[in-house]
């Protein structure tokens, strides 16, 4: 049995059409129900149905930070599942396999657990159920308890009413077979906690949706796009229960314009999309910016450019998000770095959008949106990681006389009347406009309004400097080496840092959660005194590293801090080892720890 502070990586390889993903998901849920923390990852085949997939789940008694690299337990349901994954089975790992699919795999001495899932399923007259047979076997091997297994199968497969009983039988048969043939303790079974706090088991997409609900979102319009569709599906389900509405639009341009309309009419509103959709929304983003209409746009990044690799992950949309707009169109950009953070940053996104009357883009990515993680129940929606701010409505006095929607103010924020408010009627303009909203073309007015809008960014920068959540920092305070990253690479970075720590290498990391405005003070404090920093990111042109080295060039240069870029654009997340090695290399190059 492994130790309490260890984690176990279970990888399943098999055909998508044959329930491989379901296998992984059921097993993950049973493990989570048993009190373990989980963190998953999966690949997507090119085929619409069928094709080879890999489902990986990492289990731990304590919080799991990433999906892990090498597999401790490899579960194989077909031949390619073995050939494609064998090199990733760690030296002391074990193989669990269906001997009907792979005969006599050469595991070079590693332990083997043969589960004839196909045969067992056939005996039950339920050939399709071989994946659930395997779930049963794993439930035994990991000693998760048959009852829990039954609960999960009951809950997850209820919709397929007639086959539920067959699935339960398959589970039991797999369990019984494994119990009978492998009674010895399983080397990778984790000690199950006797008591544990309740946890949520959420995908990143679901976390974004739930955070949005908590942030007060009541209108959603979107157009289906991989990998963002999950956000729409979750909100389609729950919004009506909150008196809200989800409209499937005819395209992304319609979606964002509906969102603008709904927000203009007083509702907290959002859309979610991915690269191609975001590109189509650029024009309307500028409209939200100039007309000062609060909207939230989630961009679940996938690998690009163009249609690119729709089911693969990337962080390649950073520049588009920061700079994509004709003219100078201010906006905010947030970057959650874990499933849990997706939840909180959505609350922040709505706070910032509403308070500053601006478009806010939340950057997630395919890997973070589709993986499932256990996370603690969120604290009250306005807790340490988020602040709840409201849209400023006009006072009665303002409405009573000469209401000026775009009044210039110290922080650029002017009150926004909502249709239906007596005395509030005004024109919301995509043209440059005067304080009333009426078109104006004078040089003086244009400059005034450009300044008004940009003052809001500066005001937000000041506020965000006080937010804990605007940047997260961990590791050895004051270490000579640093890592600056953003978004979903955080898990691999954290784990690599643990390993580096074990090697005696002190290192510290910072992950800004707002990329626009950047939490400059926090970053500059972090940089201070460093010898070198590593900037890992999943894109081709080192967008973030360029932004960091440009933005802080004075500090970096004055103190002779070297920036090491680590860019990877292959459609897949970082391996822990890639971060580890790059950090090690940085340390060595810079003359050791």
């Amino acid at each position, binding site marked *: 049995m492994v130790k309490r502070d260890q984690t176990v990586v279970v990888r399943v390889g098999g055909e998508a059409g044959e329930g491989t993903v379901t296998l992984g998901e059921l097993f993950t849920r049973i493990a989570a129900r048993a009190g373990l923390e989980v963190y998953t990852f999966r690949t997507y085949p090119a085929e619409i149905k069928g094709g080879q997939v890999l489902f990986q789940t990492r289990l731990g008694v304590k919080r799991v930070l990433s999906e892990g690299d090498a597999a401790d337990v490899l579960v194989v349901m077909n031949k390619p599942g073995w050939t494609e994954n064998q090199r990733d089975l760690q030296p002391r790992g074990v193989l669990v396999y269906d001997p009907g699919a792979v005969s006599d795999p050469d595991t070079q001495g590693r332990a083997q657990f043969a589960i004839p899932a196909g045969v067992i399923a056939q005996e039950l007259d339920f050939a399709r159920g071989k994946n659930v047979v395997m779930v049963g076997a794993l439930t035994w091997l990991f000693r998760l308890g048959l009852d829990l297994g039954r609960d999960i199968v009951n809950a997850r497969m209820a919709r397929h009413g007639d086959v539920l009983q067959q699935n339960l039988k398959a589970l039991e048969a797999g369990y019984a077979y494994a119990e009978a043939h492998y009674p010895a303790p399983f080397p990778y079974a984790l000690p199950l906690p006797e008591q544990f706090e*309740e946890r949520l088991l959420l995908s990143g997409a679901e976390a974004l949706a739930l955070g949005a609900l908590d942030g007060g979102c009541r209108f959603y319009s979107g157009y289906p796009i991989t990998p963002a569709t999950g956000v729409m599906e979750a909100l389609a389900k729950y919004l009506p229960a909150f008196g809200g509405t989800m*409209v499937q639009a*005819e395209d992304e341009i319609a979606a964002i*314009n509906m969102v603008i309309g709904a927000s203009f009419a007083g509702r907290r509103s959002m859309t979610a999309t991915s690269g191609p959709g975001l590109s189509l929304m650029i024009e309307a983003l500028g409209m939200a910016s100039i007309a000062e209409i609060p909207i939230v746009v989630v961009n679940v990044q996938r690998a690009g450019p163009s249609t690119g690799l729709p089911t693969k992950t990337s962080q390649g949309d950073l520049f588009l998000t920061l700079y994509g707009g004709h003219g100078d169109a201010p906006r905010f950009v947030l970057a959650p770095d874990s499933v849990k953070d997706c939840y909180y940053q959505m609350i922040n996104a709505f706070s910032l959008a509403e308070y500053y009357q601006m478009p806010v883009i939340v950057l997630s990515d395919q890997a973070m949106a589709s993986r499932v993680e256990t996370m603690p129940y969120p604290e009250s929606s306005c807790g340490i990681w988020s602040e709840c701010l409201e849209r400023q409505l006009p006072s009665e006095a303002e409405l009573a006389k000469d209401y000026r929607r775009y009044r210039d103010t110290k922080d650029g924020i002017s009150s926004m009347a909502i249709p239906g408010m007596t005395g509030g009627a005004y024109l*919301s303009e995509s043209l440059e406009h005067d304080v009333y909203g009426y078109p104006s073309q004078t040089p003086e007015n244009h400059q005034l309004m450009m300044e008004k809008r940009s003052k809001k960014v500066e005001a937000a920068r000041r506020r965000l400097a006080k937010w804990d959540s605007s940047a997260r920092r961990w590791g050895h305070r004051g270490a000579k080496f640093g890592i600056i990253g953003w978004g979903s690479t955080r898990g691999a970075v954290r784990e690599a840092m643990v390993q580096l720590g074990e090697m005696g290498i002190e290192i510290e990391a910072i992950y800004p959660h707002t990329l626009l405005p950047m939490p400059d003070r926090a970053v500059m404090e972090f940089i201070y005194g460093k010898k070198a920093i590593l900037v890992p990111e999943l894109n081709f042109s080192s967008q973030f590293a360029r932004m960091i080295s440009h933005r802080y060039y004075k500090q970096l240069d004055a103190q002779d801090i070297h920036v090491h870029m680590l860019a990877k654009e292959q459609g897949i997340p970082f391996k822990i080892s890639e971060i580890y090695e790059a950090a090690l290399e940085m340390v060595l190059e810079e003359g050791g720890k």
Partner: protein
Amino acid sequence: MSTRKAKDYKSEVKPIWCPGCGDYAVLNALMRAFAELDIPQDTIVVASGIGCSSRFPAFLNTFGIHGVHGRPLPLATGIKMANPELTVVAVGGDGDGFSIGGGHIPHAARRNVEIPYIVMDNSIYGMTKGQASPTSPEGIKRKASPYGTVEAPLNPIMMALAYEATFVARTFSGKLKEMVEIFMAAIQHPGFAFVQVLSPCVSFLDTYAHYREITAPIPEDHDPTDLLAAMRLAQATETLYLGIFRCMADRPGYSRRFQEIQSAVHPMTVPEVMDRYQR
């Protein structure tokens, strides 16, 4: 009886339109329709795109939103769904509506969202100084079409009928009274109401005289629930019929449908939603 007058809907902004532009009549007619229906200014939203015609909301005393080119319908849909109590009117031009925005009309129609959509169709791009629009007559010569256009004009009424819009009408800037009536009917219609206004551009394609000649009221015996009959009328191009081609009030509107869903669903709190995701 109405307490509001047409002029109560007027803003202080002087229209930028050329003297004689058909859009003045549309503005007057809509203000009159609002007044007749006595709708409080602050409960009206007029959403538009970009073009001469789309400058419309600035000249009104109601809430207005002058969006980007071609998107008045998505804007208006968002507004209506956010607050179904509002009177939401979408307006724009033929370029805005049938060219860049043409993809939105079928969807507004199939949603049957409770919005009158008034297209000021002058068969030209006025704002950008006279290029051919989707409804320009074939062969029209302009700077951007020096050899004459070779595209056939679209038939907006026929299109709206093909989308099964539940209210489809045509009117003409030269007929103020009829226009007011049609606008009133469109505003009161409990679904998507498509209104094509023949609204001449005196600067780049003056069609007043031509329309005076070839327009005629829809025959009294026309049955506005008969789709094919409406299509037959729409097909006529020697005579342009004015009036209500189609009106079907039996299909509930989009915001109504969502309200039904909302009231059928059990209300939830965020913690209740979370419990569904308990591991």
